């Protein structure tokens, strides 16, 4: 057993895990209709390749990935595509997204499943296979796994020493990974071996919080049965030990440098549920069609379900019988989750937990008081930040200061707000500041482009004018002197023009470099996840703009 390490801070919220682990994973019956979004992953939405009326088989590709960060989407069961178009999805913005509505035929007829002998297939082929099987990280970020298996830095492939399987599941209430490890440990471990093989990693560490003794025992047994040299580490229960960087620190003692990726220090990590999907994908030839999800909180039947992607949340919740005083639902855990905008949205790859909320379980926090600078937030922060200072600057809209106090190293874990005796919604301020900074940078970028275009046009008009004059003069001179030497002057003139052009371009390049330097720090070296997030925000803004446009233009049509 290797030594474990500590990260700074952390909190011990009540775990509420036992409620949903009393019953085995239940398979939810086939719903009457499935709504499958084409964007269930970080990055670009998949492109629909079926049309209404098509009959599809279970596991058939219906959405093709487009772009570098993207993933495939499949029919979760056999049936007929009824509709393809916008449908409400479980996004906090509440905006609809492109989905396929599938009416199951009840036959569950599969496509021809092809297993893959991963040891005798080129790694690039394996990655493409994962991409086309829609395998994404199930820990919450839904980042396409094939990209994480191609750890590049610059142009060279990173040397991965340690693969971490994340079974910490530190958020209260959530138990889907716990139950998966208890019941299907062998496949999780075999999936881990495939991931290790693809990365060429030497060592595999499986981190599980010590409040899951059954899962730890099951995983240890599976590791032994499979004859693999993996180490199952029992780590202390401390939120947020399941956060990737914190878990890496606990297991290896290494700290991922700020703004860099785990692969930069020779570590890569995957969620245990992702490893499970990888095993299903290669061994059974099954793309990602379902996931395990916890339904708990104010319900009479708290438990875990295996649910087809696209299942309406309302169907799922009904099975757990929410109590009458339920006043809403959370998706994700109580520390980092968001309220469910509506139950008329489908389950997606990112859905790990739904919690029915009641006043008894989630009492209204006491009134917010001013910050008394007690420092409890700083003592709890796993990123070693000074949350009270960040709060102060964010509230004052001093965004430059928030950045020099490392706002972008905040992982939004909520530990600070959890302990704050003044009950200040600190994380809300950090999100606000981050989105403001990103929006401003986008605006600045487009303003820069507009300015460049403008400057270039001015320059071109100027040049054309000058060239015309030059030509005119040359002609005049040519007319005056019939000596052939006169023509020699023309190239000289255009040399001057070229010189001027070069100067202007230099100036432009310099201005651009200066602008780039003036850009606040912390936004360089964005991780793919952050880039995907920015892309998503941009897409959302674009959609809002489009909606607004169609609203305005509607009367004209």
């Amino acid at each position, binding site marked *: 057993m290797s030594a474990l390490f500590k990260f700074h801070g952390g909190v011990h919220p009540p775990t509420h895990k036992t409620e949903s682990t009393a019953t085995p994973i239940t398979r939810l019956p086939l719903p009457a209709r499935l709504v499958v979004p084409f964007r269930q992953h970080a990055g670009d939405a998949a492109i629909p390749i079926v049309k209404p009326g098509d009959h599809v088989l279970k596991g058939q590709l219906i959405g093709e990935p487009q772009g570098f960060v993207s993933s495939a989407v499949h029919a979760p069961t056999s049936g007929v595509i009824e509709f393809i178009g916008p449908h409400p999805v479980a996004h906090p913005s509440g905006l609809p997204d492109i989905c396929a509505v599938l009416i199951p035929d009840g036959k569950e007829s599969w496509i021809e499943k092809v297993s893959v002998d991963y040891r005798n297939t080129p790694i690039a082929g394996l990655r493409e296979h994962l991409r086309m099987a829609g395998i994404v990280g199930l820990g919450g970020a839904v980042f396409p796994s094939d990209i994480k298996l191609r750890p590049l830095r610059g142009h060279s492939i990173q040397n991965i020493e340690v693969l971490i399987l994340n079974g910490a599941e530190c958020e209260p209430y959530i138990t889907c990974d716990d139950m998966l490890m208890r019941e299907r440990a062998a496949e999780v471990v075999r999936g881990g071996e495939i991931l290790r093989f693809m990365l060429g990693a030497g060592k595999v560490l499986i981190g599980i919080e010590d409040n899951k003794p059954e899962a730890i025992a099951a995983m240890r047994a599976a590791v032994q049965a499979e004859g693999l040299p993996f180490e199952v580490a029992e780590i202390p229960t401390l939120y947020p030990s399941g956060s990737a960087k914190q878990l890496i620190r606990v297991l290896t003692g290494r700290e991922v440098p700020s703004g860099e990726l785990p692969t930069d220090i020779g570590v890569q990590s995957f969620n245990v549920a992702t490893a499970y999907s990888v095993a299903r994908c290669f061994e059974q030839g099954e793309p990602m069609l379902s996931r395990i999800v916890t339904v708990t909180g104010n319900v009479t039947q708290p438990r875990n379900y295996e649910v087809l992607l696209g299942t309406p949340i309302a169907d799922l919740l009904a099975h757990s019988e929410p109590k009458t005083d339920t006043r809403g639902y959370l998706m994700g855990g109580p520390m980092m989750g968001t309220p469910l905008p509506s139950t008329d949205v489908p389950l997606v790859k990112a859905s790990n937990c739904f919690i029915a909320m009641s006043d008894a379980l989630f009492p209204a926090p006491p009134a917010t008081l001013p910050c008394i600078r007690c420092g409890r937030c700083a003592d709890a922060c796993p990123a070693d930040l*000074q949350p009270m200072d960040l709060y102060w600057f964010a509230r004052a809209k001093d965004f430059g200061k928030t950045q020099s106090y490392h706002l972008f190293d905040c992982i939004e874990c909520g530990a600070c707000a959890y302990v704050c005796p003044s009950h200040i919604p600190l994380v809300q301020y950090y999100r606000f500041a981050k989105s403001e900074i990103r929006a401003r940078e986008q605006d600045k970028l487009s303003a820069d482009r507009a300015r460049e275009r403008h400057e270039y046009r001015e320059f071109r008009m100027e040049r054309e004018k000058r060239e015309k004059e030059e030509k005119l003069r040359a002609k005049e001179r040519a007319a005056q002197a019939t000596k052939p030497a006169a023509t020699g002057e023309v190239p000289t003139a255009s040399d001057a023009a070229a010189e001027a052009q070069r100067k202007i371009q230099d100036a432009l390049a310099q201005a651009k470099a200066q602008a780039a330097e003036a850009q606040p720090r912390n936004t360089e070296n964005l991780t793919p996840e952050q880039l995907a997030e920015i892309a998503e925000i941009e897409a959302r803004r674009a959609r809002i703009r489009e909606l607004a446009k169609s609203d305005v233009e509607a009367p004209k049509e």
Partner: protein
Amino acid sequence: MAAFFSPFLSKPDTVSRIMLQVLLALLPGIAMYVWYFGPAILVSISLASITALGTEALMLKLRDRPVAPFLKDHSALLTGWLLALSIPPLAPWWLVVVGTAFCIVVAKHLYGGLGNNLFNPAMVGFAVLIISFPAQMTQWISPHGLGQIELTFADQLRYMFLGILPPNVTLDAITMATPLDTLKTHLHLDEPIRQILDMPIYGRLAGQGSEMVSWGFLAGGLYLMARRIISWHIPLAYLGTIFAMAGIFHLADPAHYVTPLFHWFSGAAMLGAFFILTDPVSSPTTHHGKLIFAAGAGLITYLIRAFGGFPDGTAFATLLMNICVPLIVLYTQPKIFGRKGRKP
């Protein structure tokens, strides 16, 4: 819905509960006070409490803030108690009222209210009183069994509110200088320490009676540390610095400098270490900052006591170090996750 943003859970800790714990932790010290100096201190504390709550409510109203949630945070009450515990128990009623009102109105609300005061409000009040009313601020009641005459509680009340002493009793008969003050005066007369400490005013470690009050505050402070209401940084650095300074001078010249323990159990050292310097608002938020802040305060306290014009230095040391807090915090920012070993 109660909240729209994560986290949806919070610790049931509130500012009000924290302040209540601090008030609770003052009780052992207050009990000792009553035992050795009579119940007059309870009257001062009551007066300070009423004044603190009244002026707090008034200022909140004037500043157009909600009154109830802020009154319930108990921070004004704590300020009042700390001031009452810092001034002589037999002080006339108006001294307590004026001092407390100044703490709340000027030192707290004119700086922006809860969470915004640069200075420790109680110590601002104390400093203003000792500069404006030096005579009243030095009339310390003699501890139980030491004075020529002992006043009954009724006599004490009559003196506090009406300024009337029982017939044939002079003020000098019931009050005496504090142990620190006495020490200073007699050292000026070039008396050796051993002889001074033989005076009846001194007990085992420091002043008779007052050393027991210090024990009470120490007990309360340890309780706060055990409950994690305060961290160990400030008390340790403050008391440690005083101990080190006093130790050095005492070892070098024991005839003129008293022991470190004498300093610990005299004056406001214990109250300052656990209850005054630890005020979160006016002390640094960073751990290293806390150490520097408290060590600085310890140093200044010792220098004032040993060489300065005032017998005790906790209040001025606190205020001087309060000014430095923003700077200290700026230079003690911790290395954040993923930036260790690199420039911050």
